[in-house]
C-alpha cells in the first residue's frame, strides 16, 4: 500500500459534490480520506503542493481501442493505459474489436488482468454483443459480466441486425449494463471514406451521408423504447442524431450519448490534402453538425465526451486515402482539445467539462469513479487549465501517432495522475 498523499492548495473541482474551491485533498489506503481546508500532513504522508492547479476526479473514457490481443504493434493494454493516465484518464472502457474479439469470459478476464498488471488506468473490458462480432448470435453476456465486462458493444461494426439489437437490449436488463452502440446503417455508408458534402465532391472521395448515422440512431432509440434496455449511443456526429436522441430522451427512453473531442473540434475540411489522420468513422462532418453536437453537449442531450482512441500504425495511414484505415487516437489530447474548444470559447465552464469527462461517463457505465467524495477510490487528475502546449505525436505514450491535432496548440495540460492513491503519471517541469 502506498504512502498517504496530501494534495495541498489546489482548486478542487468535483461536480459530483458541486465543489469548486481551494481545498486540500488527503488520499490514504487507495481512497479519498479527507477533503477540507488547511489539512495537516499526517505522519509519513507525502505532501504535494498544487497551487494554481485544478484537482479533479480522474477522467473516465467510455471508448478506447487498445488493440490487444492481436494488433500489439498499434497499441497494447499497457501502452494504452499509460497513454490514458498521461491524458488524465484513470478509467477507460476497452472496446472488444480485437483479434480475436472479446466475446468470451476468458478474453474479458485477460483484458482486466492485463490492465491490472500494467497498473496505470483502470481498464474495464467491454464485451462483444455477438459472437465474433458477426452480428448473428448473442454472446454469453451474463458470463461476460461475471468476468468483469461493464457493457457490451460490437463497436468497430454496427449491430446490423435489428432483431439482435432487440434481444441484446432486453437481455442486458438482467445484468444492469448498457449496450454501447456504434450506430451506422452500412447500406448508406457504402464504400464511403469521408463525410458526404461539398468537400467530398471536390476531393473526389466517396461520401458517407449523415443519414447513415441518423437512420441507425433512430432505429436503436426505437428499439430501446420497445425493450426498456439501457442504450448508449457512441460517437454521435450529426445534427440529425442529436435531434433523434433529444426526442427519445424527452419521451423517457433510457438512452445516453457520447461525442468525441474530434467531432467537437473539427469539420470535414480537415480531410483536405487527403490527410489520412483525419479519416475516421463516423467521419468529421460539416460546421452545422459541429455546432449541433456542441449545443447538444451543452444542453445535456449528449451526456459525455469519449475519445474513441483508435491507434493505427504509421504505415497503415501513410498511403492512399481510400486504402487507409479509419480511426485516430485521442486519450493524450482530449483534455487539451476540449478546454481549447469548449472552455476557452465559453461553451462550458471547467466544472461542466469535468462533469462530462468524468462524473457522467462513470454513471453511464456504473463505474466506481467520477467523484472525490470521502471513501471513494483515490483516482485523481491534477492539471494546469491555462497551460498552452504544442501537440507533438512523437512525445506520446501511445504506440501510435495518428492524430489530426499534430502541431496544433492545445490548452490545459495534465501535471499528475493518481490511480488508487498512487501517482502513476507526473509531468516533469521540462515538459
Amino acid at each position, binding site marked *: 500500500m502506498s504512502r498517504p498523499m496530501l494534495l495541498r492548495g489546489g482548486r478542487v473541482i468535483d461536480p459530483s459534490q458541486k465543489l469548486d474551491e481551494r481545498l486540500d485533498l488527503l488520499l490514504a489506503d487507495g481512497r479519498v480520506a479527507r477533503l477540507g481546508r488547511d489539512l495537516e500532513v499526517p505522519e509519513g504522508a507525502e505532501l504535494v503542493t498544487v497551487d494554481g492547479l485544478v484537482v479533479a476526479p480522474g477522467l473516465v473514457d467510455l471508448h478506447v481501442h487498445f488493440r490487444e490481443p492481436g494488433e500489439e504493434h498499434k497499441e497494447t493494454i499497457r501502452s494504452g493505459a499509460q497513454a490514458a493516465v498521461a491524458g488524465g484518464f484513470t478509467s477507460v472502457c476497452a472496446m472488444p474489436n480485437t483479434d480475436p474479439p472479446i466475446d468470451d469470459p476468458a478474453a474479458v478476464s485477460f483484458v482486466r488482468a492485463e490492465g491490472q498488471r500494467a497498473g496505470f488506468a483502470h481498464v474495464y473490458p467491454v464485451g462483444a454483443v455477438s459472437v465474433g462480432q458477426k452480428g448473428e448470435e448473442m454472446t454469453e453476456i451474463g458470463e461476460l459480466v461475471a468476468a468483469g465486462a461493464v457493457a457490451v458493444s460490437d463497436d468497430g461494426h454496427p449491430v446490423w441486425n435489428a432483431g439482435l439489437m432487440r434481444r441484446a437490449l432486453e437481455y442486458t436488463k438482467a445484468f444492469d449494463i448498457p449496450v454501447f452502440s456504434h450506430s451506422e446503417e452500412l447500406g448508406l455508408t457504402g464504400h464511403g471514406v469521408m463525410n458526404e458534402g461539398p468537400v*467530398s*465532391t471536390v*476531393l*473526389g*472521395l466517396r461520401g458517407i451521408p449523415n443519414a447513415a448515422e441518423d437512420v441507425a440512431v433512430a432505429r436503436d432509440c426505437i428499439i430501446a423504447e420497445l425493450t426498456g434496455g439501457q442504450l448508449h449511443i457512441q460517437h454521435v456526429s450529426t445534427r440529425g442524431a442529436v435531434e433523434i436522441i433529444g426526442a427519445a430522451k424527452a419521451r423517457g427512453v433510457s438512452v445516453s450519448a457520447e461525442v468525441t473531442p474530434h467531432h467537437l473540434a473539427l469539420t470535414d475540411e480537415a480531410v483536405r490534402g487527403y490527410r489520412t489522420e483525419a479519416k475516421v468513422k463516423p467521419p468529421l462532418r460539416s460546421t452545422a453538425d459541429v455546432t449541433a453536437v456542441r449545443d447538444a453537449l451543452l444542453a445535456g442531450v449528449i451526456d459525455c465526451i469519449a475519445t474513441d482512441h483508435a491507434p493505427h500504425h504509421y504505415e497503415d495511414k501513410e498511403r*492512399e*486515402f*481510400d486504402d487507409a484505415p479509419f480511426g485516430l487516437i485521442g486519450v493524450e489530447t482530449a483534455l487539451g482539445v476540449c478546454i481549447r474548444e469548449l472552455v476557452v470559447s465559453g461553451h462550458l465552464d471547467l466544472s461542466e467539462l469535468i462533469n462530462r469527462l468524468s462524473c457522467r461517463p462513470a454513471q453511464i457505465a456504473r463505474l466506481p469513479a467520477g467523484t472525490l467524495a470521502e471513501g471513494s477510490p483515490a483516482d485523481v487528475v491534477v492539471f494546469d487549465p491555462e497551460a498552452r502546449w504544442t501537440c507533438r505525436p512523437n512525445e506520446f505514450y501511445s504506440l501510435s501517432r495518428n492524430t489530426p491535432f499534430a502541431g496544433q496548440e492545445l490548452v490545459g495540460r495534465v501535471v499528475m495522475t493518481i490511480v488508487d492513491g498512487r501517482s502513476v503519471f507526473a509531468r516533469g517541469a521540462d515538459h
Partner: protein
Amino acid sequence: MTARVTFGKDLTDLEGLSADQIRTILDVAEPFKEISERPIKKVPALRGKTIVNLFYEPSTRTRVSFEFAEKRLSADTVNISGVGSSVQKGESLVDTARNLEAMRIDMVVVRHGSSGAAQFLADRIPSNVINGGDGQHEHPTQGLLDMLTIRDHLGSIEGRRVCIVGDILHSRVARSNIWGLLKLGAEVAVCGPPTLIPPGIEALGVGVLKRVEEAIEWAEVLNVLRLQLERMEAGYIPSLREYNRFFGISVARLEKAPRDILILHPGPMNRGVEIDSHVADGPHSVILQQVTNGVAVRMAVLYLLAGGRPERAEAAKKESRE
C-alpha cells in the same frame, strides 16, 4: 501579357491554378500544336530530362498522349505499367515514391485509381509530378485540352455555356472541367441521372440540369462523359439501355437544339450508350481534335513545369535541329 506567370513544382489539379496560369498553358500549347504537323516532330526543349510515366490504371490513351508529348520535347521516357511491373506487384505508393526519388527522375506522370494519389506523390518527391488522373478527383490535362478545343472553335471560353453530361459523381474529367471552365469565366452545368450527380455540386457554382433535353436547350458545348459499365453493376442505374434512352446524346435530340452544339467526349466512347455513332462522327463532334490537342497541351504543361518561359515557347519550337 502572361510573361510574369509562374508555376509550382507540380500539376495535381486545376482547382489550385489561377485563371492566368490556365490561360498561359493554353497559349503555350498553341505553338506546340504545329509541331505535330511537321515531318520531324521534335524539338529539344526537354533534352536530357528523364520522365517516368507511372500508370497504375490501364489507359492507353492518356499514356500514349503523354509519351508523344514527352518524345516531341526530346525527353527520355520510361513507362511503368502493366503486368509484371512493380505497380502490379502491389508495391506501395510510398515505396514507389522512395524509389523514384532514389533514381533522380526529373518528372513523373502518374495515373492512379485513388483520389489524392498524385498529391501523395507530389508531397513526397522532389520531381515535378503531373496528375494523369487520380481516382475520382481530377484529370487536369484532360480539362485543359477540353478547354483548348472549345477555345479553338468558339474563340473564347468566357461567357460560354458548357454542360457536362453523364456520370459526374465518379468523374475526374468533370471536376477538372468544372474548375478550369469556371476560372475562365464560362457558365457550367451538369446533367445526368440524379444517382450520379455528386451532393453539394451546386456549391462549386455549377447548375444542375435534370433532363438531357434541358441541357441541349441551354448549352453551346456538351462534354459527354463515358459511362462505366461498373455503375450499372453497382446499382446507380438500372441498365445501359435505359441510360441511352434517357441520357444518351442522339441526333434526334440534337436536332431540337436552338443552335449548333459542340460535342466533346474524353474517350474511350461507348457508342450507343452515352453517345450515338452519328453524333460521335457527325459535323459538330470535335472528339478527334481533342486527341490532337491533348498532345499539345501536355507538351505545354511539361515545358512550363520544367521551367520553360511562356514567352519562349514559340522560339523553343523553332530550335529544332533534327
